[in-house]
């Protein structure tokens, strides 16, 4: 499948360095001392059990939740200690897909994709409409453009959320479980779409996913969050973590095995 993107010199993706990130709700610590790096144009998968803190870390990276300690640096400048104007300028380069889609419920899918352009971009309504149609087409929702979020299925909502995240040609994409609710073919198409985004826009992608096939297919590196110890394992290639991961849990996780099950020798 071929995807077309604007050739208007896309801004280079920033390098992202997360150092000593500790996330907590009130006194309850969710994750401590998480370190990882996203090189420009690379794809990082955040994996781990349900409730381990993947979405929470994503929220710290996009500026929605202040970390208890640690830093999230874009091109060397810590997001959370930057002045508000710098943060806003940086946030304009982000494309974010929320776990629940977070589509604006009073707007049609097309208006959902148009709104970021209308509020922040330049151009005319005709440009926006054309581009919104293109984005919806990319995720296979061209026919549903005029529908409201309440009138589409969960998987369609996810795809519409992706189309919206792509509205401003982001240089960093944050995707929270984009393939949850997608059928295998749609999920495969999404992987292709993400790879071509990286290729054509040079975008970096941070993806939270439970889809192992997708982790192995597209992720350059992978960070495993262990809810038991509230720590993250050192970042590594997915196959490396599967075959030689430092803990039995991560090896089992990536092999889709139950770590507690006793395996009898063959």
């Amino acid at each position, binding site marked *: 499948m071929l995807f077309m993107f604007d050739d208007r010199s896309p801004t280079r993706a920033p390098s992202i360095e997360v150092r000593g990130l500790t996330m907590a709700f009130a006194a309850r610590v969710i994750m401590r001392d998480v370190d990882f790096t996203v090189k420009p144009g690379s794809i990082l998968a955040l994996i781990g059990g349900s409730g381990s803190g993947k979405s929470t870390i994503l*929220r710290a990276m*996009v*500026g*929605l939740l202040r970390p208890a300690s640690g830093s999230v640096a874009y091109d060397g400048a810590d997001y959370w200690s930057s002045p508000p104007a710098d*943060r*806003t*300028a940086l*946030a*304009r380069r*982000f494309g*974010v897909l*929320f776990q*629940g889609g*977070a*589509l*604006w*419920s009073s707007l049609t899918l097309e208006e959902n994709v148009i*709104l*970021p352009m*209308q*509020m*922040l971009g330049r151009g005319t309504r005709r440009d926006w409409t054309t581009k919104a149609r293109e984005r919806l087409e990319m995720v296979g929702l061209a026919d549903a453009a005029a529908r409201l979020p309440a009138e589409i299925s969960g998987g369609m909502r996810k795809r519409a959320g992706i189309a*919206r995240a792509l509205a*401003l040609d982001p240089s960093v994409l944050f995707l929270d479980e984009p393939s949850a609710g997608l059928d295998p073919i749609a999920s495969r198409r999404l992987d292709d779409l993400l790879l071509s985004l990286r290729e054509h826009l040079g975008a970096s992608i941070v993806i939270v996913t439970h889809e192992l096939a997708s982790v192995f297919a597209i992720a350059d590196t992978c960070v495993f969050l262990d809810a038991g110890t509230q720590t993250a394992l050192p970042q590594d290639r997915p196959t490396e973590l599967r075959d030689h991961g430092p803990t039995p849990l991560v090896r089992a996780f990536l092999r889709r095995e139950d770590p507690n099950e006793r395996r009898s020798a063959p």
Partner: protein
Amino acid sequence: MSSPGPLIRAAAGIGRGVEGVAYGVAGATALFGGLLLALPAALRGSVRARRSDFVDALAEAGYRALPIVTVVNFLVGGILAFVGAVQLVRFGAGIYVANLVGIAVVREMAAVMTAIVMAGRTGASFAARLATMQGNEEVDALVVLGISPVEHLVLPRAAALTITLPLLYLYGCAVGLLGGLAVSALLLDVGTAAFVGQLREALNADQFVIGFVKCLAFGAFLGVTSCHVGLRAGRSAAEVGRATTSAVVIGIVGIIAIDAAFALFLNALHV
């Protein structure tokens, strides 16, 4: 140490309540400040909000509220005339019902009743809408784009309510006076012409200006607090209900407090 006695627990409860109110007031004040900062941009027309949101809010806070504003104000005007008539007729002063209805409706009742109706209707609906958006992460989706929810969500709604409430007040005055007239005509031997003539003597433009200005304040207050309560809601369905209830309670109590403040202030000015 034994567990704290009831007195200490009550004191702690009061402390927490005061703290909650203080946070609420601080938050609403900050929101109000944010709105004032966004106002110049709004007047230049370069605000990050959708025009259609504003138009929807105008409809919601405007003509869609007409039926209930009509009913409530007509009945209040009628009730005032009825109570007045019963008393005044005993002194042979039936005609002064027009004075009573006129002053009471224009200066107080049309303003306060219309504002209370709007607190229950539009304030509740704004709070529920914004709380739902908060729960769906729709507000977060704006924030990550660098779009301020105050500018995008609160400003169009608060502006709409500040514009429509004074207009609804003028309409409420007309309906309330009509209600008074209808009851007087039925109960007393006061003709329409006499009633209107008496009204003209009792009322002057000042009374309307006072009611109008009060409604500007009520509208701004309701718009800001109901949106603020909605935005502060947590992420569950129960929070939507809670936000709606507190928007209405805060709205009604606030309106009455503002009205009392106006009364004291105007009294000091001898108006």
